[in-house]
């Protein structure tokens, strides 16, 4: 039986290895300078890159993080500091339930509130949808990390006459900072790969655009359009873009891992 469960574990790891290997095999050869600095060319022509999508991803995800991180961290601090009562239970439960909400549902919600009223797709609506997805995730990881701070530290600060709020912010939160940053990195990595909530909000854009009130391209949207399109050239670019996106997400995940290691050793 040991052999069986070892084999099953091996299979799961093999799936990861195969996917990463395929991405590298089919995507790496297309990664050249042009890929990163040029915009897409009309369908059928060869060449072109995804500069607009890379810039768009950074902008949309960046704004989503600006909205989502403060709210998520605040909610997480609430859960860790005051979350022992009924409201804490409710918030914790709702956060976990929201974490499993299909992102496409959040997409149509953001469409209703931010695209329909103004009659135009916008990067900002995409950011809002991603921020909504981020909040419950960040809240829960922040809570977990703050809880790891030993009570003795808090007691020491209070005994020295620190007010509670300063204890919470200056001592507890600062001690847990590495962990909170980790959670944020993981959250950002996850929403950077989201596509479904952007389909009806940021929409995608074949041209270079940094206008927040206009449709904007992201890597994930570009991969979707190119991957499902009819041209070989598009498929080649889809693989390359997928490799870039995957690399981005992996780097963030590994960075998060590294930060945790530094702080807590191999506690988990």
């Amino acid at each position, binding site marked *: 039986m040991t052999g069986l469960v070892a084999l099953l574990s091996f299979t799961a*790891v093999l799936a*990861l290895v195969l996917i990463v290997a395929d991405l590298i095999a089919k995507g790496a050869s297309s990664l050249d300078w042009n890929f990163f600095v040029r915009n897409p060319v009309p369908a059928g022509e060869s060449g072109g890159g995804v500069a607009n999508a890379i810039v768009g991803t950074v902008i949309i995800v960046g704004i989503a993080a600006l909205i989502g991180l403060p709210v998520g961290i605040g909610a997480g601090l609430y859960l860790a500091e005051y979350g022992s009562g009924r409201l804490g239970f409710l918030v914790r439960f709702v956060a976990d339930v929201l974490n499993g909400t299909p992102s496409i549902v959040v997409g149509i919600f953001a469409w209703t509130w931010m695209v329909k009223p103004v009659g135009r797709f916008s990067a900002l609506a995409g950011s809002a949808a991603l921020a909504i997805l981020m909040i419950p995730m960040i809240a829960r990881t922040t809570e977990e990390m703050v809880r790891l701070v030993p009570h003795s530290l808090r007691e020491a600060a209070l005994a020295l006459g620190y007010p509670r709020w300063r204890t919470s*912010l200056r001592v507890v939160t600062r001690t847990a900072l590495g962990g909170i940053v980790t959670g944020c990195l993981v959250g950002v*990595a996850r929403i950077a790969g989201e*596509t479904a909530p952007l389909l009806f909000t940021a929409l995608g854009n074949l041209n270079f655009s940094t206008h927040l009130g206009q449709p904007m391209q992201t890597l*994930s949207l570009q991969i979707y359009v190119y991957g499902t399109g009819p041209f070989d050239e598009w498929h080649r670019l*889809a693989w390359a873009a997928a490799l870039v996106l995957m690399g981005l997400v992996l780097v963030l995940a590994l960075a998060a891992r590294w930060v945790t290691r530094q702080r807590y050793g191999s506690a988990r």
Partner: protein
Amino acid sequence: MTTLPLEPVPAPPEQATPSAEPRWQSLRGVNESDRIYQGVLTALALALPLLIVVLLAQLFVSALPAIRRFGPSFLWTSTWDPVAEVYGAAPMIFGTLASSFIALLLAVPLALGVAIFLTEFAPRWLRQPVAFLVELLAAIPSVVYGVWGIFVLIPFLRAYVVPPLKAVLGWTPFFQGVFYGNSLLAGGIILAIMIVPYIAAVSREVLLAVPGSQREAALAMGATRWEAVRSAVLPYGRAGLIGAVILGLGRALGETMAVTMVIGNRHDIGLSALQPAYTMAAALANEFSEATTDLYLSALFEVGLILFVITVVVNAAARLLIWRVARGAAVGSQAL
């Protein structure tokens, strides 16, 4: 000795929850700025319950025209005709359930195997790296799975999996018809790979929460390590393991991009896994921006509402089960 007369010891009642009032709460008085601080944090935390209520209410309001027009028969009607303005979501609901079922069928043994291996049998140095690699599967964006599914998985299925499947099981209704590539089977397999990390991560945490005394007791009675796992560890963590599986189900039900790219998007109910199908999430992804009439849009919102309600119920059930084992812990949140 195959079965042990061991009843799993019920979880200790009311363990000190991680949020039990610690000593520092009484250490110092509360002043005005403390109240402001608490108020701000509370307001931010309230955003979450507010969000779920607003989401639900908005979806319901947007879906109202379709709900009024079609009533409950929306759930079991198979017609989806934007020209005649007749909508029924049965094929999508069926496809969503069927693809998730296939995914669970494949993912559960795999994920439980990973969890059991990592908590009970693997050498210590191997545990962290393997757990990390499996969790990385959850980090791969859905759309990347989709591309991989289209260009790698489907050709592989066509060449090596479907012919033997048809040869052996072709007589059953589940493997009939021509395999064109995009199919329920491809969607289910992609979903399985995607939910393995979630089920594995949560199961692993659940198994880690099983007290060592349970194993030791079984081993002391003469059980082998495998028997100890089967007769003591798994029964003890049963509620949490079921929760882990249901959590995986919740992920599978709502997964959008990868499924949309490989399932074929056909409004039809068919038993054959080799045929194209449709899911609720895929219908939203494909048709939402094409919905030209208000009723069409409303019907899609109703699909979204159904999907949302199902996933909320499924996730709530999963969380309650997991919390029974690992109280209040954000189990699996490490799995990205």
